[in-house]
């Protein structure tokens, strides 16, 4: 009779909660984003440009002159920064394409799904980790510079505000950033899950962002209908964004500009929120569907 050593003992230590496992995924995803030299250069360039522009905007807005432009006055400064197509829109678009475009497609290409899902990770956890990772990168190009502006505004702006008003500004900046970032991150993940390559999702996302903006402009000119403006992705986020800020009198005499001439959409919050929420939910559904589908096909 064979005598077996039977030395195996199951592990009896403590397990981390589910949230910590998702955090572990996010940490590696962030490291992964910085793994390639090209990516490092691109990210560094993006952030340098972003923070450079933040600095310029901030310095201009705080110059001791009698009059300033309306978009640089008060909390309009934050709104202008987060709503502008350049640099913010273009840089967000680039970051989403670079980071989000390959987030799922790389795992599909390298057969990494079975590595994840044979651990204590469910597809929903995976989706949350990827969404959080892409969102964090996009927030670093939206919320982080806007928060810097907010700190600087507190320090040097010639507007006398209560703490409540300042905190309301910070809340508005946070909410505006999330309105921009969350739907984009999920939509890009959906595109990424539809391909095994990083290039196609990146191109599709760029086409969506710029294409929706362009088509909205063209149709708006041709048809003159209000609904045409709802076709533009930037218009949707801008409209929800501007509703985040409290209305208060401008602190200085201002030069009126087109930027502040009216709302970016002739609609209240319901229409843009419904569209963006629908895009986000459908995108999440696509990612989860693709994860289940690919589990069987690897």
């Amino acid at each position, binding site marked *: 009779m064979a005598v077996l050593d039977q030395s*195996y003992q199951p592990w009896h230590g403590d*397990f981390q909660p589910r949230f910590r496992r998702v955090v572990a995924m996010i940490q590696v995803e962030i490291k992964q984003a910085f793994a390639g030299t090209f990516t490092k250069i691109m990210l560094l360039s993006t952030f340098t440009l972003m923070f450079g522009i933040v600095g310029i905007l901030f310095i201009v807005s705080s110059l001791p002159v009698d009059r300033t432009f309306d978009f640089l006055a008060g909390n309009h400064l934050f709104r202008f920064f987060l709503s502008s197509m350049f640099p913010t829109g273009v840089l967000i678009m680039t970051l989403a394409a670079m980071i989000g475009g390959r987030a799922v497609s790389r795992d599909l290409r390298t057969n*990494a799904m*079975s590595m994840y*899902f044979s651990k204590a990770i469910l597809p929903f956890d995976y989706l949350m980790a990827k969404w959080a990772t892409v969102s964090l990168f996009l927030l670093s190009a939206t919320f982080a510079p806007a928060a810097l502006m907010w700190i600087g505004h507190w320090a040097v702006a010639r507007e006398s505000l209560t703490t409540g008003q300042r905190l309301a500004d910070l809340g508005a900046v946070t909410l505006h950033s999330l309105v921009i970032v969350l739907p984009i991150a999920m939509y890009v993940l959906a595109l990424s899950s539809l391909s095994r390559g990083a290039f196609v999702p990146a191109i599709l996302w760029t086409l969506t962002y710029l294409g929706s903006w362009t088509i909205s402009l063209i149709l708006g000119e041709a048809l003159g209908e209000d609904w045409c403006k709802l076709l533009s992705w930037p218009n949707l986020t801008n409209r929800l964004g501007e509703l985040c800020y409290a209305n208060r009198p401008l602190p200085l005499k201002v030069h009126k500009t087109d930027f502040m001439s009216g709302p970016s959409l002739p609609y209240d919050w319901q229409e843009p929120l419904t569209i963006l929420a629908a895009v986000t939910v459908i995108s999440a559904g696509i990612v989860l569907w693709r994860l289940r589908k690919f589990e*069987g096909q690897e």
Partner: protein
Amino acid sequence: MSDPIIAVEHLNMWYGRVTALNDVSLTTPPGISGLLGPNGAGKTSFMRILVGLMRPSGGAVTVLGDDPWNNTAHNLRTGYCPEHDGFHEWMSGREFLTWMLRLRGRMREDARHGAAEALDRVRLQDAADRPIGTYSRGMRQRLKIAQAVSHDARLLFLDEPLTGTDPLVRLELIELIRSFGREGRSVLVSSHVLHEIEALTTNIVLFHRGRLVACGDVHEIRSLIDRHPHLVSVRTTRARDLAAALLRDESVSEVSFPRESEILVRTRRPDDFYARLPKVALELECSVEELSSPDDNLEAVFRYLTEK
């Protein structure tokens, strides 16, 4: 008798109109079991269902007493080594194993400790801090096995762990897998090569075209196979003379000529035939240029079993 580790009843799996598994029912005892079948037999689908990666189209699956589908507790007690690599190539082996353990819920320090033990177990300590992208095929296989076993899994699923490895690494891996069995763990290991499975266990499960063909002791299966005629192809310069001489031997039941310089011999006693052939060739002073057996591939073995 101990409870089965895996119990499957009327398991079906379809990909659209393609049937991957067809009404499979079986149980496997604790210890090492071999899952044998040619490519496309449904081994990987079967294994992925047991791991909990896929939901079966029909039937009931119980692994260690639980349904594996969508069950993270199941994944804490089992380990899976997939056939294909799924690494982040920029990571080192140590980082990868630590991360895998953290995804299994280990605290950071526990994960580091577990990773070091697993690296030691699969003899990857020297390369532990190198990027995985620089690893050889054998090292990658060992790392995959390490991530499957590092959390002290009670049951291991190893999908073709020996594929693509050189003979030395193969021997090492076979010994490693056998050591898991000796410790009291259970292992389900798949392969399409009979002698690989024979080296690991006597308990085998045979799949062919999505169906369970046979299940039990490898020696019974082997004798079943040996009762069927064995084909041997002989390439020689004097095919007709050699064929005439071989036909006089009792071990040969039939000879045919697929090509001018090739004889296809059918024998029910392959060992006797292989012993006799060199003597006959020497007597005739003809050279045997190539000797191969179409039956060496598992597909042929399964053809015998399914046509019997």
